[in-house]
């Protein structure tokens, strides 16, 4: 397998460097005249990925914004004198001022502290559920495609059946029964439990062409266990797609969290999330617009930056993407 890996790497290198615009001769050398390869400085795969990612200004912008938001969620509470669960009853629905930087809610909670907390919750729910969704859908999607025959038929039927009822309705039913501080955990479980199905179908389609490849057959005929083939050969070969989907999945998970909390079905007081803050803001659109505006701005920044990173990653590492080849 190690030979296979290096060959693949060389091939990958060929394409990569060619798109970089370096003279083709330099690329051909290491392959055709193996001996001289030592003199050449090879460009590693990661370096290429990073370089391609950094070539897109929008992707770099997204990365910077996301880093700032994460730092804000982690350490933002330290610079603020107020806590998200300690309302200031002397300032109810107060406009932004020196005392309360982003104003207060109707209940007197400091908006800055609430947003830091809410952003943290939204990020946590988004990242955890998106990661779990991708793990589950990768294993099940490849397994359904790998076993073929009856397993594939039954598996696809079950996936289609699960997709019949919109997952949003099912998540709402589950999350409803949760309350208080464990709400975010239930929300994560709910979003994960019904979020993997669509992705599993996509991954199954991708695996259908992978399973015909020689190294998979070779592994099969050598007697490698099915589970091992799935985990060691199939899933890693979908790695780039999985990483991209995980990043973009954060956007949809955050959107779902926002929607459910906004309807009053997700995270509830005393805990808070950006969706919960929007719900609070809705009731006082006329009198206290800042309760609505600041969480909205943070939400758009969050989802937009993640989307830009995802698009940048797709161009940098997706072997199936056709968008990379046409760069000017």
């Amino acid at each position, binding site marked *: 397998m190690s030979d296979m890996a290096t060959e693949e790497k060389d091939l990958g290198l060929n394409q990569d460097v060619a798109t970089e615009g370096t003279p083709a001769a330099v690329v051909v050398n290491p392959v055709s005249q193996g001996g001289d390869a030592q003199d050449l400085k090879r460009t590693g795969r990661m370096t290429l990925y990073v370089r391609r990612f950094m070539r897109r200004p929008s992707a770099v912008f997204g990365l910077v914004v996301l880093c700032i938001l994460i730092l804000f969620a982690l350490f933002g509470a330290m610079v603020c004198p107020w806590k998200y669960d300690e309302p200031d009853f002397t300032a109810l629905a107060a406009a932004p001022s020196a005392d309360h930087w982003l104003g207060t809610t109707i209940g007197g909670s400091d908006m800055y502290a609430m947003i830091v907390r809410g952003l943290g919750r939204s990020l946590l729910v988004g990242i955890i559920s998106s990661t779990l969704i991708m793990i589950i859908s990768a294993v099940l999607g490849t397994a359904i495609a790998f076993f073929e025959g009856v397993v594939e038929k039954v598996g696809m039927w079950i996936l289609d059946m699960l997709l019949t009822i919109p997952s949003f*309705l099912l998540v709402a039913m589950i999350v409803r029964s949760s309350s208080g501080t464990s709400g975010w955990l239930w929300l994560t479980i709910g979003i994960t439990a019904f979020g993997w199905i669509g992705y599993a179908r996509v991954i199954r389609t991708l695996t259908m062409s992978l399973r015909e490849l020689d190294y998979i057959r070779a592994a099969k005929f050598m007697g490698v266990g099915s589970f091992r083939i799935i985990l060691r050969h199939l899933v890693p070969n979908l790695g780039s797609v999985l990483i991209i989907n995980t990043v973009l999945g954060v956007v949809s998970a955050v959107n779902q969290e926002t929607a459910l909390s906004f309807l*009053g079905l997700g995270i509830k007081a005393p805990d808070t999330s950006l969706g919960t803050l929007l719900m609070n803001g809705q009731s006082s659109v006329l009198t206290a617009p800042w309760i609505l505006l600041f969480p909205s701005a943070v939400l758009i920044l969050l989802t937009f930056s993640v989307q830009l990173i995802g698009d940048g990653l797709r161009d940098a590492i997706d072997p199936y993407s056709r968008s990379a080849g046409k760069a000017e």
Partner: protein
Amino acid sequence: MIKYIIRRLVNYVIMLFVAISMTYFLASAFMDPRSNYMSRNPRPPEASIDRSLDLANINDKTPVLVRYFNWLKGIVTEWNWGLSPDQEPVAPAVASRISSSVQLVAISTVLSIIIGVSLGVYTAIRQYKWQDRALNAVSTLFLVTPAAVLGLLIVLGTIAINNATGTRIFYVTGLHSYEGGNIGLAILDFLQHIILPTIVLVCIGYVNYHLTQRTYLLDTMNADYVRTARAKGLTLNQAIRKHALRTSLIPTTTNIAFSIASIFTGAVITETVFAINGLGRYFVTTIQDNDINGAVCIAAFSGVCTLAGALLADILAAWLDPRIRLN
């Protein structure tokens, strides 16, 4: 063709039955109608709680399988989808809200398709030019903006406009408020109500058509038969219109058929923001009231819509694309 459709239909009916049953068990496991009474003050006596729950067939002291078969028998024999905890039949409640949902969603879906597909074609022809990049950026922004944020920001903007002009140009709640008999005024009133939720739904809905149509058209634009058409001497526009566009519309048609499902549940947030009494809002109410039968009824209805869309997509795909083998 008929045989193919019938086979799909039978498969979908079985699928729907399993999915609805699963939803029923899920709802029964996670929703707790008893808690509605427990939080009342003074708390009603245990026996009376049990009696009301028994009447609606949602008593958690009855085994769930017994409840399930009672519920199933009601549907099969008398098309009775059960009662809410307040002893209201849920099926008429769902039926009465379908028309509001359709009014709201029909216009915006048509607009989304028209705007999305034309933008997709427009940007695909101008790939990587500034128009393409600008429109892509706008669409990406709408793609990631949560519906609640978009709706609330539009409400905020509208209130500012109404205040600035001093008259009520747009209404931000409901679908109707005019009571008189004048048709012209009634239509104007309806338009004043519908325009804002429509803007929100179109902004959310068109993005998908734009981005996918762009990809599909770019795929076909580089196909051999389009190059042949160009080689024969057709101009780029003719080649695209007559050869590339037609094939690239096939996946979009399937997309449209599938969107029938999201029509009824996709507007939950918009209905909440604009206080429109449609299916989405009713669903939120059923969840908040622990109304098991009501929630399952809506889930079943949206399941029917999904599969109707899937069946329509199957038929359209088979009809449009001769490459799909029916057997």
